[in-house]
């Protein structure tokens, strides 16, 4: 764990398309941003749920994939050098004097003048398989994401799943584990072909074990896992192990956002439609996470919200400065910020 303290003017929670574009609108107004996401990559839903699917309703862009949109946005905000803090979830948010203090599960603390919540459909979190008593073992023997793999050295490990995460960790951990068993419901895997081939080789050579089936029971004592039972049709097989790593993809959960003292309406944050500010001063909410009369959960609406939000954010960060309205096409000062020649 790193204990880190970061001072910033503007902290954006959520690096989905709307969080990313807000870096641009804030940047034009000289506001530097730090941006946090629980995912290990920017792009939110576009990157996680539909990277290859086309979007047809971005103004002026007849067709672009989720991934294409994310990479264009990242390119567009490059001149403003946002600082990304990925793979961590914002857990706490509180007022300290006239600033906001935000903590993450990674151990870092941010002190900021303005917060922009662009948390979309909530944070992407690992799916937890509904196996009886699994909570008892979480963080002791059962892990859904891995930060410190040294813990697994010389242990008997069971990895469940058949996608990229499961297979990548098989390749990573099998050399240091005492034994490794991969459990999957079918013989086919869905991952990068090269990874699949490597895992197949490990199975064929007997370096790792493969069990067809699904985990249906855990046993152990005092949060320490001793055995998992694997069900395949009518058959049950017990595997001794100390570590279980289930990888069943991610799901969106509202998560800690609900605990921050903001007015919510059906799990969405209420904002006004002038500044997109919440019931707390200097905390804004834009994109899929907010609600107001007439709200549509579209990327284009989030972009609009980002532009108007930035105006008000400016007044908190530079209370003495007035904004003069300018176009990127013609303003030499905006062009300078964007690094283009006028």
């Amino acid at each position, binding site marked *: 764990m790193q204990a880190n303290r970061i001072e910033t003017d503007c902290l954006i929670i959520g690096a989905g398309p709307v969080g990313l574009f807000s870096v641009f609108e804030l940047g034009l107004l000289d506001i530097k941003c730090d941006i946090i996401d629980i995912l290990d990559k920017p792009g939110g839903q576009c990157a996680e749920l539909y990277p290859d699917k086309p979007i047809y309703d971005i103004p002026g862009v007849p067709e672009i994939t989720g991934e294409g949109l994310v990479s264009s946005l990242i390119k567009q905000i490059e001149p403003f050098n946002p600082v990304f803090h990925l793979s961590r979830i914002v857990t706490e948010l509180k007022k300290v004097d006239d600033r906001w203090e935000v903590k993450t599960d990674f151990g870092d603390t941010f002190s900021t003048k303005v917060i922009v919540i662009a948390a979309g459909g909530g944070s992407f979190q690992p799916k937890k*398989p509904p196996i009886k008593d699994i909570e008892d073992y979480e963080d002791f023997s059962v892990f859904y994401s891995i930060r410190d793999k040294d813990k697994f050295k010389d242990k008997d490990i069971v990895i469940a799943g058949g996608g990229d995460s499961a297979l990548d960790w098989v390749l990573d951990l099998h050399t240091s584990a005492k034994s490794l068993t991969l459990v999957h419901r079918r013989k086919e895997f869905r991952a990068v072909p090269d990874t699949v081939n490597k895992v197949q080789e490990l199975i064929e050579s007997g370096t790792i074990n493969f069990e067809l089936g699904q985990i249906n029971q855990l046993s152990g004592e005092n949060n320490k896992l001793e055995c998992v039972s694997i069900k395949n049709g009518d058959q049950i097989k017990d595997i001794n192990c100390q570590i279980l790593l289930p990888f069943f993809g991610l799901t*969106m959960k509202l998560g800690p956002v609900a605990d921050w003292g903001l007015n919510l309406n059906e799990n969405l944050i209420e904002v006004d439609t002038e500044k997109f500010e919440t019931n707390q001063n200097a905390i804004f909410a834009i994109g899929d996470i907010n609600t107001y009369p007439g709200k549509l959960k579209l990327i284009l609406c989030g972009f609009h919200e980002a532009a108007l939000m930035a105006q008000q954010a400016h007044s908190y960060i530079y209370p003495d400065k007035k904004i003069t309205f300018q176009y990127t096409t013609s303003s030499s000062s905006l062009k300078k910020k964007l690094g283009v020649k006028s």
Partner: protein
Amino acid sequence: MVKVTFIEFDKTEHSIDAEKDTSLMEVAIQNGVPGIDADCGGACACATCHVYVDQNWVDKTGKAEQMEQDMLDFAFDVTDQSRLSCQIKITDDLDGLIVNLPEKQF
């Protein structure tokens, strides 16, 4: 109209007159059937719309295609009756369809 019945894990039944050409997932969401999350809105990208098709209807609903099979890897307790409800289209043939819902979409 096509009659479909969702049976929740606790056996609560929801019988609904479904509109043709919508997906079974949309029928559930539009009628407030609990137990189907559908995070991705039907793009076959989240596996949070998992259902078990009643044994008598498995032939009529057909088999999951490759993409759906791959996505089912991210559901839990998958059986031969498992389908992602966003990939089942309501047709006249499905009049009377019964599906069971998992304990949760986790």
